[in-house]
C-alpha cells in the first residue's frame, strides 16, 4: 500500500482504440506542488480526470491516503469531495450568483448550516479579492474573476488536494496574473496541488517537481531547476526547445 498522499500505479486509459495513458506511476506527498507539462494531446487532462475518477481507469490503481479509490463499484461522492478540481473553462453554474456557486456543494454535501457557511464563503471571497463581486452572476464577471470563483468553489469543500487543468489557458494575457497569484497564495498555505500547465515560467518558479508527459507516459521528472536547465531525455529537450524560446 503506497504511503504518499496520492499515488498512481501503472494507470492505463484508452478511448476506443486510442491508448492515451500507457502506465502512469506517480506519488504526490502532502503539501507538494507538482506541475505536469507536455505537448497538447499528451494526456495531461486525461490523467487529472482519471485521478478523481471522472474517467474510470482501465487498469492500474489510484490511491488516496492509502485507500484504493479506483476500485470498481466504490461510492465516489466521498472521494471526490476530498479532491478539488478546476477546469480550463471554469464551468461555473450560470443560473447562480458567485456566492451560490460556492455554497451549493458545502450545503448539500457537507450539510453545513446557512449562516456559518455564508460567513466562511465570504471569507474565501475576501481572501481572493472578490468580496465585491460575490453577488454577481457568472456572465457579469470577467474570465479571470470567473476562474477565481471556480477555485473558491473547489476550496469551499475543504479539499485535501487540488487538481488544476490549465486554468489560465482560456484567459486574456492580462488576466493570467491574477489567477496565478491565487495559486501562489495556495502554495504558500501549503495546499497539495497537481497542475497541468503551459506556463513554464510559473512551473519553474513554484513547482516542487515537474513531470514531462509524452505519448501517455511520464518521460522525465525532477525538480524544475533540473528539468528546465538540464533535461536528460531527448524528447524533453525537444519539447522545451519549442516552448521556451
Amino acid at each position, binding site marked *: 500500500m503506497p504511503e504518499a498522499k496520492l499515488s498512481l500505479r501503472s494507470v492505463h486509459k484508452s478511448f476506443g482504440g486510442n491508448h492515451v495513458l500507457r502506465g502512469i506511476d506517480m506519488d504526490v506527498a502532502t503539501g507538494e506542488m507538482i506541475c505536469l507539462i507536455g505537448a497538447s494531446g499528451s494526456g495531461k487532462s486525461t490523467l487529472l480526470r482519471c485521478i478523481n475518477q*471522472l474517467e474510470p481507469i482501465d487498469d492500474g490503481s489510484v490511491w488516496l491516503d492509502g485507500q484504493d479509490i479506483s476500485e470498481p463499484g466504490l461510492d465516489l*461522492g466521498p472521494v471526490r469531495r476530498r*479532491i*478539488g478540481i478546476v477546469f480550463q473553462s471554469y464551468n461555473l453554474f450560470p443560473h447562480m450568483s458567485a456566492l451560490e456557486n460556492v455554497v451549493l*456543494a458545502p450545503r448539500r*454535501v457537507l450539510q453545513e448550516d446557512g449562516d456559518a457557511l455564508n460567513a466562511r464563503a465570504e471569507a474565501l471571497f475576501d481572501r481572493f479579492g472578490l468580496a465585491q463581486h460575490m453577488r454577481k452572476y457568472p456572465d*457579469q464577471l470577467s474570465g479571470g474573476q470567473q476562474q477565481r470563483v471556480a477555485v473558491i*468553489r473547489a476550496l469551499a*469543500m475543504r479539499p485535501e488536494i487540488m487538481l488544476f487543468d490549465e486554468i489560465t489557458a482560456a484567459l486574456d494575457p492580462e488576466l493570467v496574473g491574477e489567477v496565478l497569484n491565487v495559486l501562489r497564495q495556495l502554495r504558500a498555505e501549503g495546499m497539495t496541488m497537481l497542475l497541468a500547465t503551459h506556463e513554464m515560467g510559473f512551473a519553474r518558479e513554484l513547482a516542487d517537481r515537474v513531470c514531462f508527459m509524452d505519448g501517455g507516459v511520464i518521460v522525465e521528472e525532477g525538480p524544475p531547476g533540473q528539468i528546465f536547465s538540464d533535461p536528460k531525455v531527448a524528447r524533453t529537450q525537444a519539447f522545451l526547445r519549442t516552448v521556451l524560446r
Partner: protein
Amino acid sequence: MNRRQAYETAQRRRSLTVAGISTAAVLAAIILLVPLTPGWPQVRASFFDGGVFAQTFPTLLRAFLIDVMIFAWSVPLILTLGLAIALARGARAPALFPLRIFGAVYVDVFRGVPVVLTIYLIGFGVPGLGLPRPWNSPYIWGTVALVLTYSAYIAEVLRSGIESIHASQRNAAICLGLSERDTMRYVILPQAVRRVVPANMNMLVALQKDVALLSFIGPVEILRQAGIYKSLLANFTPYVVAAVIFLIVTVPATRYADHLLNRDRDARS
C-alpha cells in the same frame, strides 16, 4: 439628454408615427371596405349580432370558467408527470433501463395519438370498466387524457432542455461531490427549465384551447355552449363571443409570460 439619447428618441418617434399611420390605414380600409362587399349584411347578421352577443356572453363566460378550472388543475399534474417522464427517459443507471423504455414508449404513444382519440378512449373507456360515480366523471377522465397527452409533449421539451445543458456542467457538479440527484435538481434542471420556458408556454396556450375537446365526452364548456346557442338561435355570433373570451385570456397570459422571460433576462445583464 445626451446626443445618442436624442437621436434614439427621434428615431422612436418616427417609427411610432409610421406604425400608427399604417395601422390606421389598414383598419380604415377594413372598416370602410368590408361593409361594401355584397355578403356583408348576411355575415354581420350571423356572426356579429349585437343582441345575440349580449344575450349569450354571460352564459358563455360562465361556461369558460369550466375550461379555466380544467386547465388550472391539469397544469400542475402535466408539469409533474412531464418532469417524471423526462427524468425516466434520461435515467443513466443500467438498472433503470426498463424505466427508460417505459418513458420512450409513453412519449411515443401519447404524442402519436391525436388528443381527441385519447379523450374518447380514456373518457369513455376507463369509466366503462365499471367505476362508480363520481369516479367515472368525464371531468376526471377527460383531465387524465389531457394530462397523459400533454405530459408526453412536456417531457420531450424538458428532455431536450436537459440534453442541451453541456456535459461540463454535470462534470463540475459531480467533481464537487454532488450526488446525481442533487446535480439534476440544483444544476441541470434549473438551467434546462429556463431554456424551455418559451416552448412550454406555447404548450400551455395549446392546452388552454384543447381543454375545449373535453366537450366531446359531455362537459358543457364554452365551445359546446356556443354550439348549443348556435343550434338554438341559428346564429354564429356565440362562436365569435367564445373566440373573444379566449383571446381576452390567452393574449395577456402569453404577454405576461414574455414579460417574465424578459425580466429574467434583463436582471442578469
